């Protein structure tokens, strides 16, 4: 009985954790390319979910068309955000940029509230909702979708950053922006790329989680903070450590909520965040000077 429960909590924790990991990687990619913590990251998660919902209900698109459409629109918002809010700054200081992303996040949330209202909306699961039994626990097909899509995205990410010249150029920017400019890398374009990748990944996270948790104009706040927490645990790496960070966070949160009290669910994430920041600010796995891409 007890074991089954723990298995159940762990499994559902893993799938929420995968979502946190995707959002966290979005944070890391932008941070590594620009040094900015993009607090608007969560809003792209919200946009992904709500836009999918609209594509399905208003445009009557089938799910397979609604999802790319929602990702494309969210990415477009990401591009506009970089163009209109980040790039025009001539001498950006980190604090300016952080405040701008917070402002952008409030703006996006406000606009979303005007468009979609304050109600919670649902998105249908990708392939039914017949539970699947694993050991003594049950999971939904959507959980499997989440895990599979997260894995695929992380794999593509890895290929992009390590095996394409454009990805290498982006890593180069994160190691030494000055030298990157000197070898002819257009650092500003790389910043734009980083916003494109992160907003698309955020949107994907929002889309795959929406069938499980429902979605609303303000889901981005909490999901964004949890993703940030995953990125911090992973030492702002856009690779495996942030994935593990997200999974640890998801599982601990789920176990804590199940075994102690669901009221503490969010508190657990933030206690972990604080502990990491106090004791291992370089991330759980990082050496003092960790590899960050």
């Amino acid at each position: 009985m007890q074991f089954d429960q723990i298995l159940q909590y762990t499994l559902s924790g893993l799938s929420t954790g995968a979502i946190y990991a995707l959002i966290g990687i979005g944070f890391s990619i932008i941070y590594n390319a620009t040094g900015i913590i993009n607090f608007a990251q969560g809003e792209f998660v919200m946009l992904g979910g709500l836009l999918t919902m609209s594509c399905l209900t208003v445009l009557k698109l089938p799910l397979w068309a609604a999802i790319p459409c929602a990702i494309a629109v969210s990415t477009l918002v990401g591009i506009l955000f970089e163009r209109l809010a980040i790039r025009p700054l001539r001498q950006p200081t980190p604090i300016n940029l952080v405040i701008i992303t917070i402002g952008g996040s409030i703006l996006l949330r406000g606009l979303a509230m005007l468009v979609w209202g304050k109600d919670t909306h649902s998105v249908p699961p990708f392939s039914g909702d017949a539970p699947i039994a694993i050991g003594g626990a049950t999971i939904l097909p959507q959980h499997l979708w989440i895990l599979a899509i997260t894995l695929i995205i992380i794999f593509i990410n890895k290929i992009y950053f390590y095996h394409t010249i454009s990805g290498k150029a982006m890593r180069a920017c994160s190691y030494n922006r000055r030298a990157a400019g000197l070898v002819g890398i257009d650092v500003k374009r790389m910043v734009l790329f980083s916003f494109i990748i992160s907003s698309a990944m955020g949107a994907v996270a929002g889309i795959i989680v929406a069938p499980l948790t429902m979605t609303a104009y303000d889901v981005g706040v909490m999901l964004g903070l949890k993703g940030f927490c995953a990125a911090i645990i992973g030492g702002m790496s856009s690779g495996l450590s942030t994935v593990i960070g997200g999974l640890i966070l998801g599982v601990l949160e789920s176990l804590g909520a199940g075994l102690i009290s669901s009221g503490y669910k969010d508190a657990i994430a933030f206690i972990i965040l604080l502990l990491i920041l106090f004791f291992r600010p370089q991330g759980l796995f990082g050496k003092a000077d960790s590899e960050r891409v």
Partner: protein
Amino acid sequence: MLEVSGITQIFGGVTALDNVSFSIAKGNITGVIGPNGAGKTTLFNIITGIYSQTAGTVTLEGKNVSGFPPERLARLAMVRTFQNIELFGGMTVLENVMVGMHTRSSSGLLACALKMPWTISEERRIRDGAMKWLEFTGIVDLADHLAGSLPFGKGRLLEIARALAVEPRIVLMDEPAAGLNSQETLGLAQLIKRIRDLGITVVLVEHDMELVMDICDRIVVLNLGRKLAEGTPREIQESPEVISAYLGDDD
């Protein structure tokens, strides 16, 4: 090839460069020398787009490039190296050079996302090209090491290899021999000559007089922000103004 005319740079009340003009012929190795504080590095920073000058113009192959940012200059085939080497520490030696070939790569983000097999074959082509530059600079055996773990002298060679991978027509080197031992400096002199033999114009700021006199075709001497002299190494060595600037006047 490269022409600077009337370059003046004022920092606050200090005139770091005062109306400096000279031109660099294609295929030459030109040394810029001068006592400390003469404005050599400032001049380099202006030419390579890191500072923007108070007055004057920089012309590269007939095109006015004053105020162009470094990445645009790199695309116009002008690159530089730094006195304190600037590498991508967390990437391997090979990857550092591959990134240098980035401007010659045609695949953008979308191409990478949509046409994976094609970009991977391009990656292979770039990898082979990068290996050639590592062979040229003699560090091919270190290809898989992390750039951050290289000893200083090898790091300098890597920086040069990366600069060459941009396929420049002109390379500016800021004190390439700084921090090298005499053995490494000899190797560097040979390397710089081989770079010129590829048809690449080289400009260097350097304190090591032996190196400068050995390899440079022409020398520009700066002192206190002004051009003091310009000529072949022999002319410079015999110039009374230069001797007095370096050694002080007799009177």
